[in-house]
């Protein structure tokens, strides 16, 4: 089967600095691909290019067989690419329910334009992530872990085919991490392919079908989790030993 997402020679330059350099990879249907690498490796930049938040310097991205490299972010959202942000991006003055309803109303091309039904769908998503009891609260009043749940619910309400998760587990305790892993697996079982950026090693290892490692913007490993984590290059990258 053709991959859901294919990224070829993807490169991003910022005024002299190369943040992402000629990265190639594929993501298959219902696969969970973990994206790891030391800080500053370019992971978020890579996701930004896939979601359309950042422009592409070189290379191309194809989603479901279509070239989306230069499509604006909202078009990609309508095609089925959803994402969460590491620095969370709620709509602060809107209620938690309405935050999610935006995704329901605008997410996919065939999304429902009816406000009432969009809100009903949003309630389901809030239930799914465990935020239903806060539906009427203003989004800005939520605490850290709840904000992460909201980010996820917002992305899910778009009914994406591809979900890009950017560090959803940072700052969570062990119990909460287990919950998030379970939720992500449930999302995948519902038919969504997922690309996850994460720093919590134990979590990413048990969650991912495959791991992709970035270092200084380049891909240095791609494969089964245990193999990748045992790879000396990857260990070097994290421990910072200079390669000869």
């Amino acid at each position, binding site marked *: 089967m053709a991959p859901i997402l294919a990224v070829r020679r993807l490169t991003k330059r910022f005024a002299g600095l190369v943040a992402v350099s000629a990265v190639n990879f594929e993501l298959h249907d219902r696969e969970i691909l973990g994206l790891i690498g030391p800080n500053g490796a370019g992971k978020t930049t890579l996701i930004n290019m896939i979601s359309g*938040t950042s422009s592409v310097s070189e290379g191309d991205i194809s989603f479901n067989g279509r070239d989306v490299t230069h499509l604006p972010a*909202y078009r990609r959202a309508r095609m089925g690419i959803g*994402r969460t942000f590491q620095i969370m*991006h709620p709509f*602060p003055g809107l209620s938690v329910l309405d935050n999610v309803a935006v995704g329901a109303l605008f997410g996919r091309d065939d999304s429902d334009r009816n406000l009432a039904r969009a809100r009903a769908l949003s309630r389901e998503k809030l239930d799914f992530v465990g935020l239903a009891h806060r539906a009427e609260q203003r989004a800005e009043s939520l605490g850290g872990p709840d904000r992460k749940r909201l980010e996820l619910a*917002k992305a899910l309400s778009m009914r994406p085919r591809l979900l890009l998760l950017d560090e959803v587990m940072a700052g969570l305790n062990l119990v909460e991490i287990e919950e998030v892993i379970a939720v992500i697996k449930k999302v995948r079982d519902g038919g969504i392919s997922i690309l996850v950026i994460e720093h919590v090693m134990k979590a990413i290892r048990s969650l991912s079908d495959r791991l992709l490692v970035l270092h200084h913007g380049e891909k240095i490993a791609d494969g089964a989790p245990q193999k990748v984590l045992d790879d000396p290059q990857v260990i070097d990258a994290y421990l910072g030993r200079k390669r000869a």
Partner: protein
Amino acid sequence: MRRSILLGVVGIALIVLATAPWFASASLIQFGISTLLLATLAQSWNIIGGYAGYASFGNSVFYGLGSYGTAIAMVQWHLPFGVGLALGAALAVIFAVMIGVPVLRLRGHYFAICTLALAEVMIAIVSNLDVAGGNTGLVLPLLRGDALFYELSLGLLVVTTLVVLWIAHSRFGFGLMAIRENEQAAAVMGVDTTLYKVLAFALSGVFAAIAGGIHAYWITFLDPVSAFDIGLNVKMIIMSVFGGPGSILGPVVGAFLLSGVSELLSTEISTLAALFFGVVIVVAVVFMPRGLADVGRRFRQLGWRYFAENVRTHRV
């Protein structure tokens, strides 16, 4: 329960306002026309400033375009008033689309400054157009009957408010509010932000333009400085902000209240009225930055602490 009371109050107010020409004095009717037009301006600003969150400091341009569109149509081409209004509205839409696309890419305060500068530029441009009568302006045909203008203005305000009501409950309005709250997140969730911003800008322009057209015909005279009156921006923004940007009735209430008080003060010294607006903005921004509508919503929970809370969260 509360909603039906509100509807009742609005209904009664509408009836009183609509029948006013029969029992109010001539000067009160004139005051009424000015206030109704100002309220329309505040409400139209609400669409781009309150719902979309793009604070335009130059919506006076649309008002001026509407005034001149109507005047030129009637004076130079001898077309009827209705056509004149339509021309003014069309000019507003064209301006909103052509200028809106580049200018709406600017963030918050840059957008504000840019629209302010645009407002000034338009005055100078129009002053040099012969078809617009240059610096001397145009004189429109006289139509007696303030009552007619009054009802027209009231009708316009009602229509504008109904449009805002629709926006508040529609997918379009949802998109605007998402843009206001977090534009980047809105884009990534599928909102075509450029299209929606331009639409909101054009919509706010249309109603401001029609208000300008009615005003021009009513006072029968316009020149560039008064048609594109920069001071209108002050008024429409603070009326909307004071009443509650992003609410349905806030700007209307704000306009009526502030107009009323300013009129009372005007009878004393005319500069005092302008001073009054300045003081209102300052006090409102410190203690009730989200307007009366928000005060109404949260006063019940917080009481007088509401005002202190606003200061506490915003001060250093």
